[in-house]
């Protein structure tokens, strides 16, 4: 990519309010290409709201969002989205294949229906998340981890360049979590940019290249090593989590064990 290429995501002075009560204040952000970014912050910090504001699902009260230099609607095809699992009704009358094919809808024009090529893409994506044997299964007969894999396969079928994932690790089994981490790594290796809402500080440090610390405003954004410090996490969580000190402790202990560290 040439140095002049617009960044995958640029947010300028974004403020979002529900019923005139702001939940996100003045976010300024430029996400560089090919990064795996974790969005971290306490409950109610506005992590999901940020994702929805980027997608234009929640209209901002001020500020703007650019996707590869253009407004969202002109570049929707370049964005893949994994919503929270609880946001849909899993008794809906569709099977796994139907759901994954929905990822192809953005590439089809009006009045067009998914064809053979789209099915092949969908099958390949299901294979990647190891759900191909379940392609014809009704979605209500899936476990939480399997549901999450299906959602990920649907996003993969979108074949986008920027992926937004809202809590993909919430309530999934260990095997699914590590499978998702592997796939996210593969996507990044192919130059994709990923933004992942994440709530588990203990793993955040290992999973992500960059972290966005969020608590209604942006506390910090940068490479994980620079951002994942006691002071900054303290500023984000405000001492609300006891886990915080444990995590920070384990980190400082690690550093002591490696005297030649930076």
């Amino acid at each position, binding site marked *: 990519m040439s140095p002049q290429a617009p960044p995958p995501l640029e947010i300028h002075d974004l403020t979002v309010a529900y*019923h005139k009560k702001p939940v996100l204040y003045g976010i300024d952000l430029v996400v560089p290409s090919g990064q795996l970014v974790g969005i971290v912050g306490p409950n109610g910090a506005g992590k999901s709201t940020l994702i*929805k504001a980027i*997608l*234009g*699902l929640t209209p901002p009260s001020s500020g703007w969002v650019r996707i590869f230099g253009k407004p969202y*609607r002109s570049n*929707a*095809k370049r*964005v893949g*989205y994994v*919503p929270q699992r609880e*946001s*849909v*009704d899993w008794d*809906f*009358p*569709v*099977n796994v294949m*139907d*759901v994954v094919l*929905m990822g192809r*809808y*953005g590439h*089809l024009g*009006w*009045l067009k*229906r*998914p064809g053979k090529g789209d099915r092949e893409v969908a099958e390949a994506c299901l294979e990647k998340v190891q759900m191909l044997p379940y392609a014809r299964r*009704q979605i*209500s007969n899936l476990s939480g981890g399997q549901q999450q894999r299906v959602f990920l396969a*649907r996003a993969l079928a*979108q074949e986008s360049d920027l992926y*937004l994932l809202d809590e993909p690790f919430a309530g999934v089994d260990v095997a699914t979590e590590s499978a998702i981490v592997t796939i996210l790594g593969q996507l990044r290796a192919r130059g994709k940019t990923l933004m992942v809402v994440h709530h588990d500080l203990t793993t955040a440090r290992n999973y992500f290249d960059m972290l966005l610390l969020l608590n209604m405003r942006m506390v910090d954004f940068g490479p994980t090593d620079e951002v994942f410090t006691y002071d900054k996490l303290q500023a984000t969580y405000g001492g609300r989590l006891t886990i915080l000190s444990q995590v920070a402790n384990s980190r400082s202990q690690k550093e002591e064990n490696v005297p030649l560290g930076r």
Partner: protein
Amino acid sequence: MHPNYPCRGLGLALVAGLLLLAAGDLSAAKIGDLSDTRFWDQLVRFFSLRDPSLRYTLTASLFLGTCCGLLGSFIVVRKLSLMGDTLSHAVLPGVALGFLWTMTKNPWAIFVGATIAGLLGTVVVHWIHTTTHIKEDSAMGLVLSGFYALGICLFTMIQQLPTGNKAGLDKFMFGQAAALSAEDLWMIGIITILSLIAIVLFYKEFLVTSFDFGFAHALGLSARFFHYLIMLLLALSVVIALQAVGVVLVSALLITPAATAFLLTDRMHRMLIYASLFGMGAGVAGAFFSYLGNNLPTGPFIIVAASTLFALALFFSNRYGIIPRWIRNLSRDRRIQVENTLKAVYHVREENAFSHDGIPVKALGDRRNLSPSEVEKEIRQLVRRGLATLEQGEPEPPPSPERKLFLTASGWETACRIVRNHRLWELYLTESVRYRPDHVHDDAEEIEHLLGEDTVRQLERRLNYPTRDPHGKLIPSLRDLSQTPFAGRSG
């Protein structure tokens, strides 16, 4: 059927409906005008479609069944079922205003008024639940009753007006499928075909918007546009259905066939087809019974027919039906009985240190605490399933309790499998879940019949391929199975 063409069958049915319409004589007589009441005559008249008014009613029923089945499917899967009821009540003031506008029963004026009132109702619902903390169901209840009451007030005022041809406005309240005019029928046909075209063209957009609104938006689709398109079509179909079945029963016409279809399938395109077929079937059945009964109201009969279909699906559908489930339970209970008998045979043989292949029938009865006749019944089950053979003793009756029972290879395998499941599970509970050894038997009695091969493999691996259960008894492993002595059938 290929999912991409959800509505091909419906198209055919609609063409048939159109032909009926074209064949319709414009000088319609009311169904009730018939004088002969003899059952067979009526039946012949019904199926020969000689009556123009019957043709009207039938055509309208087919169209309405299709239209309401299609749109009803979407509101059922979107959990918006109350929306149909809200709309049907909210359109009432619009009907009255449409009448006051022209002071005639001009169907187009009434149609426009009703549609506007219905859409206004949905906007008010949306506005209340997005700007206040009142939830959507309460907002719908508010709009439903408020608009309906306003409609009744306006209707009463119209009745007191000195001028105007106001007779027949009450058909919007209670519905009168037999009194539909040619113009009404055209309206019903046009709206149905519009809905059908919209759903065929925008099937994928409607599907993704209904399933996952946020994702549809993220795809770059105009999710809101498709939401409002469905709501508009819904309002239109409520307005056309109103005259046929009345305010209260419109929502039944929307929900019942769709809910029936939802019991029978888990794919949206099939649900759409089934729902419209059920809608049409209920329409025809309603028209038929009201015709047979001479001047009985069609609308309620349509809904009774639709509800009957729902009840049938509730009882007989393969997945949720009460009766198939009952049959499945019965066959599972029988399997568990058989497995318990086999297990008892294993236990008896184990007590003899597996020295005899055959065991006396009496020993089996003692082991399972069964009366001789019950034991005979159990044994007949085993023999019939090829799990055991019975020694040929003296000719019956009475069968000798000393006759010997031999398990076949598959019977012995099943017996070993059940005992192994039981003992593995007991061991798992004591070792891994830390149950006390005297607490585990009852649980294992149930689980032994449910464990699959994969789970058993996992248990074995986790317990490090054990050979003894917590009570010190041998766990028959698959390897033992082949070695367990069948040789030396010492009778």
